[in-house]
C-alpha cells in the first residue's frame, strides 16, 4: 500500500557539495543504545583495550578535578569524586564488563549501556530516595567514559547501513573520519561551521554535508527517503517520484563528470596561455597518498601533522614521527612535502584537554603559540622533521603566527635543534599567514621565510571577527569578502618583492570559482583537498593569466562579499559551463 506523504524542502548551509539520495540515520549522542555492533573475534581484544583506556583517562580526569577541589577546599565534592574513582575500579565496571564483551561479542559501548540500564533499574527499585540518587554519580561517571570511548571508537559511523543520510546535532572530526563513503551518503547537522575539522574531513572524503538544518521534522516524521543537494544547501524530505528521477539523473551526470575529470591527472596545471602553477594536495591521513598521486597532485602543500595524533590520541615519539615523515617523502618521490608543525588547540579537541581548558580556543593558546610553551613537544617534532628532511624534499611550515617575534622564536628553536643534531643541510622554512596582524606586516615575514602559505579559513575568521565554530555566525563567514581579497593581495605583493612564492591552502583553494582570482592575485601554488585536484586543474586550464589578472583587478574594486562571489560565479560559468557541481545560482 502506498502511503501518500508530502514532499517538503528545507534549507541549510551547504558545507560539502554533492548529491545524495538515501534514508535518514539519526545519530543520537544522548542515548547510546543506537549502537549495537557485532565485533569479530579478532577485534575483541581491541574493544577491551579501548575500554581500559577510557577508564584510565576518566580516572586521570577525576584526579585532576579532585586536585582542583582541594585547592577550593570543597570537601563534599572530593568525597563524591573519591566514590567515582572507586566505581572506576569496581569489578562490576571492570571484570564484569570485559567478561560480557567477551561473551556477547558486542561493542563495549553497547555492553556498558546495557549494564547501566540494569543498574538503573536496581537503583530505582530501592525505596530510599537517598540511595536512588546515587545512580546519578554512576551516570555522571559513565558519561565521561562514553565520551572517551567515542573518541577512540572508530566504528561509530562505520557500521551504518549503506546510503544513510546521517543526521546529528553536531559532528566530530572522528565521526567524519570513521564514515565510509559507501555507507554514509551525506551528513546533516543542526550546528557546525564550514571550516571545522569535521567539515574538512567530510570534504576530503567528498561526503555531501549540510549544516544549520532543523532536524525536528526528520526526527518526528522519520521519512523513508531524503535527498541532499549539497550544492544549494537543499534537503528534500519525502521526495516525489519525479523529484527522485530528476535527482538520480543529476547524480549520474555528476558521477560522469567526476570520472571524466580524472583524465586531467596527466595534464599539466597550466592556464591556456601557458602560465604554470604548482597544484599540490593537503594531506591529513598518510593512507591518502596513493589517491593524491592518482589525482595528479604535484606534491604535498600542507601536511596537517597533528592528524598523526588522531588514531591513538597519544603524542607520537620522535622516532614514530620520523618514520611517518620519511614514509610520506619517499612515497612522494622527489616532489615537495610541506610539513606543518602541530596545530593543536582551536577546534581540534584531540589532546587538547590534556593540556589546557580554554573558553575561546580560536583566540587562545593554539598552534605555534602552544608549541612555544610546550618546548619539548615542539623540539621533538623539529628534530623528527630535520632528520626526515635528509631523506626527501621536505619543508617546514609554522602555523598561526601572529607576530614576527613568534616566528623568530620558532626559528631559534629550529636552529637549536640543528645544533643538537649537527644537521646543517638546507631546509626551506615557511610561515602560515592566517592572522591579519601577520598579513599587514607580510614584508617583514617575507624577509625571514623561504615561502609563505595563506591559510584562508583562519584569515577569514580573524579578519571578519567570526568564530568559525559558531554556527550562528555562518552567514557572516564570507571568504569572498573584499577585506580578505585585499589581505591576500597585500601578502602576494610583498612576497613577490622578496621573490618568494605564496601558496593558498585554505578551503577557497579547493573551490574552482576562486581559482582564476587567486592566480590573478599572484598566487603560485594551490594546495587542495585531494578529491578536488582534477576540478581545480580543470579550472586552471580553462582560464588565462591575462584574464585572471583582469578579474583580480575588477574584484579588488568591489565592495561586498556577495558582489565578489557573483562575479566569480559568472566568470567560472563562462569558462567552465559544463561543471554541474558549482554552476548554479546563489541560494536565497
Amino acid at each position, binding site marked *: 500500500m502506498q502511503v501518500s506523504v508530502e514532499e517538503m524542502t528545507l534549507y541549510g548551509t551547504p558545507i560539502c557539495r554533492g548529491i545524495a539520495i538515501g534514508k535518514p540515520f539519526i545519530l543520537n549522542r544522548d542515548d547510546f543504545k543506537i549502537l549495537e555492533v557485532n565485533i569479530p573475534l579478532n577485534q575483541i581484544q581491541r574493544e577491551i583495550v579501548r575500554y581500559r583506556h577510557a577508564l584510565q583517562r576518566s580516572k586521570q580526569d577525576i584526579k585532576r578535578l579532585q586536585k582542583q577541589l582541594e585547592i577550593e577546599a570543597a570537601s563534599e565534592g572530593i*568525597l*563524591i569524586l*573519591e*566514590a567515582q574513582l*572507586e*566505581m572506576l575500579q*569496581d*569489578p*562490576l*565496571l571492570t571484570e564484569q564488563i570485559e567478561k560480557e564483551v567477551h561473551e556477547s561479542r558486542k561493542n563495549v559501548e553497547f555492553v556498558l549501556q546495557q549494564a547501566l540500564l540494569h*543498574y538503573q533499574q*536496581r*537503583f530505582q527499585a*530501592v*525505596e*530510599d530516595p*537517598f*540511595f536512588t540518587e*546515587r545512580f546519578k*554519580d*554512576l551516570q555522571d561517571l559513565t558519561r565521561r567514559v562514553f565520551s572517551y570511548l567515542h573518541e577512540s571508537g572508530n566504528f561509530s559511523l562505520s557500521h551504518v547501513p549503506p546510503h544513510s543520510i546521517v543526521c546529528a546535532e553536531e559532528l566530530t572530526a572522528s565521526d567524519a573520519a570513521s564514515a565510509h563513503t559507501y555507507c554514509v551518503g551525506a551528513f546533516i547537522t543542526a550546528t557546525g561551521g564550514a571550516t571545522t575539522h569535521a567539515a574538512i574531513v567530510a570534504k576530503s572524503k567528498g561526503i555531501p554535508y549540510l549544516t544549520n538544518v532543523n532536524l525536528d521534522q526528520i526526527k518526528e516524521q522519520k521519512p523513508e527517503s531524503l535527498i541532499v543537494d549539497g550544492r544549494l544547501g537543499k534537503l528534500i524530505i519525502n521526495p516525489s517520484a519525479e523529484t527522485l528521477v530528476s535527482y538520480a539523473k543529476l547524480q549520474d551526470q555528476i558521477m560522469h563528470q567526476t570520472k571524466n575529470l580524472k583524465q586531467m591527472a596527466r595534464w599539466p596545471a597550466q592556464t591556456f596561455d601557458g602560465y604554470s602553477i604548482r597544484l599540490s594536495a593537503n594531506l591529513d591521513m598518510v593512507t591518502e597518498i596513493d589517491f593524491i598521486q592518482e589525482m595528479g597532485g604535484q606534491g604535498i602543500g600542507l601536511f596537517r601533522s597533528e592528524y598523526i595524533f588522531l588514531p591513538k590520541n597519544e603524542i607520537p615519539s620522535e622516532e614514530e614521527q620520523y618514520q611517518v615523515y620519511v614514509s610520506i617523502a619517499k612515497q612522494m618521490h622527489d616532489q615537495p612535502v610541506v610539513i606543518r608543525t602541530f596545530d593543536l588547540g582551536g577546534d581540534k579537541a584531540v589532546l587538547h584537554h590534556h593540556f589546557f581548558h580554554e573558553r575561546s580556543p580560536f583566540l587562545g593558546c593554539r598552534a605555534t603559540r602552544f608549541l612555544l610553551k610546550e618546548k619539548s613537544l615542539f623540539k621533538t617534532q623539529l628534530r623528527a622533521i630535520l632528520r626526515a628532511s635528509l631523506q626527501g624534499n621536505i619543508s617546514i611550515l609554522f602555523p598561526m603566527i601572529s607576530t614576527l617575534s613568534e616566528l623568530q622564536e620558532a626559528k631559534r628553536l629550529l636552529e637549536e635543534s640543528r645544533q643538537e643534531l649537527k644537521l646543517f643541510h638546507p631546509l626551506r622554512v615557511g610561515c602560515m599567514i592566517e592572522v591579519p596582524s601577520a598579513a599587514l606586516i607580510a614584508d617583514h615575514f617575507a624577509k625571514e621565510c623561504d615561502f609563505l602559505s595563506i591559510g584562508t579559513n583562519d584569515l577569514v575568521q580573524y579578519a571578519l571577527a567570526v568564530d568559525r565554530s559558531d554556527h550562528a555566525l555562518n552567514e557572516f563567514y564570507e571568504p569572498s569578502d573584499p577585506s580578505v581579497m585585499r589581505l591576500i593581495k597585500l601578502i602576494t605583493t610583498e612576497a613577490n618583492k622578496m621573490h618568494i612564492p605564496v601558496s593558498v591552502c585554505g578551503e577557497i583553494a579547493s573551490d574552482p570559482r576562486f581559482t582564476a582570482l587567486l592566480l590573478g592575485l599572484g598566487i603560485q601554488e594551490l594546495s587542495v583537498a585531494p578529491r578536488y585536484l582534477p576540478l581545480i586543474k580543470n579550472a586552471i586550464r580553462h582560464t588565462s593569466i591575462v584574464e585572471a589578472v583582469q578579474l583580480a583587478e575588477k574584484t579588488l574594486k568591489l565592495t561586498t562579499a556577495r558582489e565578489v562571489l557573483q562575479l566569480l560565479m559568472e566568470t567560472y560559468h563562462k569558462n567552465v559551463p559544463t561543471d554541474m557541481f558549482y554552476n548554479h545560482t546563489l541560494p536565497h
Partner: protein
Amino acid sequence: MKIVRKVQVKNAMGLHTRPATTIVKLLQNCPCDVTFTHKQDTVNAKSILSLLMLAATKNSKITIVVEGDEADVTMNKLVQAFENQFGE
C-alpha cells in the same frame, strides 16, 4: 578460613557513599573474598556499586562473610569500621 559475623549499620545516613567508599578502600588489597548480605541480597563487598545497591539504611543488619587468608584480621577491621561509624 571462613568467618561470619553480624553487624548493624549505626550511621544516620545508612551505608551511603562515604561508608561504602571506606569499605572498598579498606578491602582494596585484601586477599579474602568478602560478601555482605542484607535482607535477601548478597553482594561482593569490594564493589562500591553493589554496596550502594544494597541500600542499607540506619539500623540495617548486615551479615559479613570473610573467606581466605587472615580472614580474622580483615573481619576485625570491618567490624571496627562499622563500630566507629566509619569515622563520621
